[in-house]
């Protein structure tokens, strides 16, 4: 639509991560060649990270309902009723690739993103967890990555002011070139005051809130879906810097704004911020959206429409407001020192129109942008069953005593205190069980009710048998909740796998999802939210299949919660199960 933008060539299309058949689909959808900005918008909406094009088919097989489920997958986070008018809101999300490139900021912004997902729903975050996988301890980068990631998780959560109460840390050489950082956040809301992304009403203001937009992470969403090659460390400026201080202000301002009755719809700006959030609000509400980008608060001069639409600057939100409440809303944001700008409005034409200084930069059908993303039934092969090994055939190289010492001294099993002592796990004054036990327990609204939470998976089981490994991860999470005396409620999952275009990897994904589904159905343990991270490979070598399971349970009375420590000498020890 404008002369000075690059011509749309096959190379440019490929550089946006769009396959030729996907580009064909775009052409037939809009009936003409897309503009540069439009191409960027499609690449953001249709990449693996946002569209779940390889996994959607299989995710649909997971059980997502239950009498207590208020909101299952499809919103920023899942919502479950915990009685007395309260609801728990939670989700887990990955920030794997950015954390490998810049461990501190990558992990920090991962935590920031998931906290935003939770408070966007109207919940105050009350706990955070993190599931981390690093390469072999002796790998030259591991030390640096561990210390950077742990400092980043802590740096963000500690400053934001949420207790980080649990998680897991594992080491394996298959993560040497591709670590995993999965962050989970848990919030509390009133069951009748949950906020959604779905906009309603024509001609309402679309409002931009939070920090200013810079050229951060342009193409970050595409990067999250691309395999690493040796050049990745060069493609660096895509990493964003987190500002937990701004996020804390955003939290307080959003909750205050929600309480004032001003909000029609709200969506956080995550990957491909403005694009995904605006399209989602419109598409879910069967409305069009018009944006006027000159009103977007920016941090750098001369930003183009393309850059503004794809920027991944952190700590930003988009809202649709009741027009008569605009002044109330503005006052709240000014008080908290945050930007507040009307950047567009809702329309009735089901188009996503983006203007910059009056010039039309994109004009796309809004429903199709989201709903008609490609969806693949990728070929997959069942993982061959590993040969069972009889105990009798395994040489006992060392005695029991030595074996035990080796085990407890190993990186895999040693104490994680070094990690969780860097996380503020007591802030808010409700941490009944700190990290170190089976599940963390926090008190709800002064008690006696409490919430238990855990994150689990054993990747080598999933590698040996994806179906059994998927089942086992859910079962372990369930056991960890029941072990502290909680009634398990629901699950969030974070499916970390290699390149799904390889049938063996796709087979791992399918197997694990089937296993998770089977276990969740058997246990009445619905999946209410989650995230998929694919293409976790370096130079063709995939990580271990790692479907992290986050789970939440409820306790009626925290004083009855059980802890892991032996209490007195001379008491009987019982072994339960087989």
């Amino acid at each position, binding site marked *: 639509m404008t002369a000075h933008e690059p011509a749309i060539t096959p190379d440019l299309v490929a550089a946006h991560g769009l396959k030729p058949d996907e580009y064909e689909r775009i052409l037939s959808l809009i009936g003409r060649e897309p503009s540069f900005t439009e191409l960027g918008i499609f690449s953001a909406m249709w990449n693996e990270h946002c569209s779940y094009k390889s996994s959607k088919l299989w995710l649909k097989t997971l059980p997502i309902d239950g009498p207590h489920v208020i909101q299952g997958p499809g919103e920023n986070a899942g919502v479950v009723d915990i009685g007395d008018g309260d609801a728990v809101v939670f989700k887990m999300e990955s920030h794997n690739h950015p954390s490998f490139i810049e461990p501190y900021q990558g992990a920090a912004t991962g935590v920031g993103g998931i906290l935003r997902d939770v408070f966007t729903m109207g919940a105050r975050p009350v706990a955070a967890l993190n599931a981390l996988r690093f390469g072999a301890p002796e790998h030259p980068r591991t030390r640096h990555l561990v210390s950077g990631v742990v*400092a980043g998780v802590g740096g963000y959560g*500690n*400053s934001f002011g949420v207790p980080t109460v649990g998680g897991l840390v594992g080491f394996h050489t298959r993560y040497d070139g591709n670590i995993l950082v999965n962050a989970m956040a848990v919030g509390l809301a009133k069951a009748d005051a949950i906020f959604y992304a779905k906009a309603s009403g024509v001609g309402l203001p679309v409002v931009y809130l939070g920090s200013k937009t810079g050229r951060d992470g342009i193409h970050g969403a595409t990067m999250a879906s691309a395999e690493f090659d040796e050049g990745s460390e060069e493609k660096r400026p895509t990493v964003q810097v987190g500002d937990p*201080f701004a996020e804390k202000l955003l939290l307080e301002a959003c909750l205050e704004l929600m309480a004032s009755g001003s909000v029609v719809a709200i969506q956080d700006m995550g990957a491909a911020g403005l694009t995904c959030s605006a399209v989602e609000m419109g598409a879910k509400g069967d409305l069009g959206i018009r944006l006027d980008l000159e009103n977007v608060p920016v941090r750098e001069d001369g930003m183009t429409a393309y850059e503004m639409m794809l920027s991944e600057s952190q700590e930003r939100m988009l809202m649709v407001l009741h027009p008569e409440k605009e002044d109330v809303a503005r006052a709240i944001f000014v008080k908290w020192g945050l930007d507040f700008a009307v950047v567009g409005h809702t329309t009735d034409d089901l188009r996503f129109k983006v203007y910059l200084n009056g010039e039309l930069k994109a004009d796309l059908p809004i429903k199709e942008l989201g709903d008609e993303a490609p969806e693949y039934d990728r070929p997959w092969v069942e993982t061959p069953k590993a040969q069972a090994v009889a105990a009798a055939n395994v040489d006992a190289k060392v005695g029991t005593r030595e074996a035990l010492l080796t085990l407890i001294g190993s990186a895999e099993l040693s104490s994680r205190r070094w990690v969780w002592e860097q996380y503020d796990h*007591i802030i808010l*004054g409700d941490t009944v069980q700190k990290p170190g036990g089976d599940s963390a327990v926090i008190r709800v609204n002064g008690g006696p009710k409490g919430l238990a939470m855990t994150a689990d998976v054993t990747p080598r089981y999933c590698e040996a048998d994806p179906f059994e490994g998927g089942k086992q991860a859910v079962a372990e999470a369930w056991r960890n909740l029941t072990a502290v005396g909680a009634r398990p409620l629901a699950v969030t999952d974070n499916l970390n796998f290699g390149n799904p275009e390889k049938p063996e990897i796709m087979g791992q994904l399918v197997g694990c999802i089937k296993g998770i589904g089977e276990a969740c159905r058997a246990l009445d343990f619905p999946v209410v939210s989650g995230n998929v991270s694919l293409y976790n490979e370096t130079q063709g070598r995939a990580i271990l299949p790692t479907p992290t399971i986050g789970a939440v349970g409820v306790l009626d009375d925290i*004083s009855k919660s059980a802890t892991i420590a032996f209490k007195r000498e001379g008491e009987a020890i019982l072994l339960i199960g087989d």
Partner: protein
Amino acid sequence: MNAAVIVFPGSNRERDVAAALRAGTGSAPAMVWHADTDLPAGTDLVVLPGGFSYGDYLRCGAIAARAPIMDAVRAHAARGGLVLGICNGFQILVESGLLPGILTRNKNLRFICKTQHLKVERVDTRFTSGYQPGQVIEVACAHGEGNYFADPETIERLEGDGRVAFRYCDAAGNVGGLANANGSINDIAGVYSEKLNVLGMMPHPENLIDGAVGGTDGLVLFAGLAKAA
């Protein structure tokens, strides 16, 4: 007992300390915004809560120490009014000149969150009247920059005047050594102003106010304040 909690942008333990004040004194504190210029009339105690005011960018507490409300806090302190700064609040007090010294990065350069024992150095102040002489209390630490430092003359003066409020110790009351995780000089965990009406401390008594969540050693401080005011 009229308490006022100052809320800075980035404060994050203001709710925790408000809960502790309610539990200890029986009444809820006023929450005062950093941009205000006056304290509520009749304020007996000002509390500067923990957190990361202004992100703790530049130096911890540096920007908050220069917030509009701080003139009123200084005036209150000069009149002999009680001021309690916890963690970030302590950092704000030293940056604003209400207490001597400075808090620098923990000696291991990492954030430390753990249960911590403290030795109560004196029990004849309005903050500590609820404790027994020499009592060892259990509170919680959660900070990245709690390494107390001051020049030798200042330290000598603080020690000489009995202005050290708490020292890091182990459960048995042995001061220092491994119990001093952040590297503070003389194992100092808290200090008083000259007139003993301003107290800054790194650990969090407000997170130990309830038997169901860790313990109650922190509650004693707040309950004692109610009686003292």
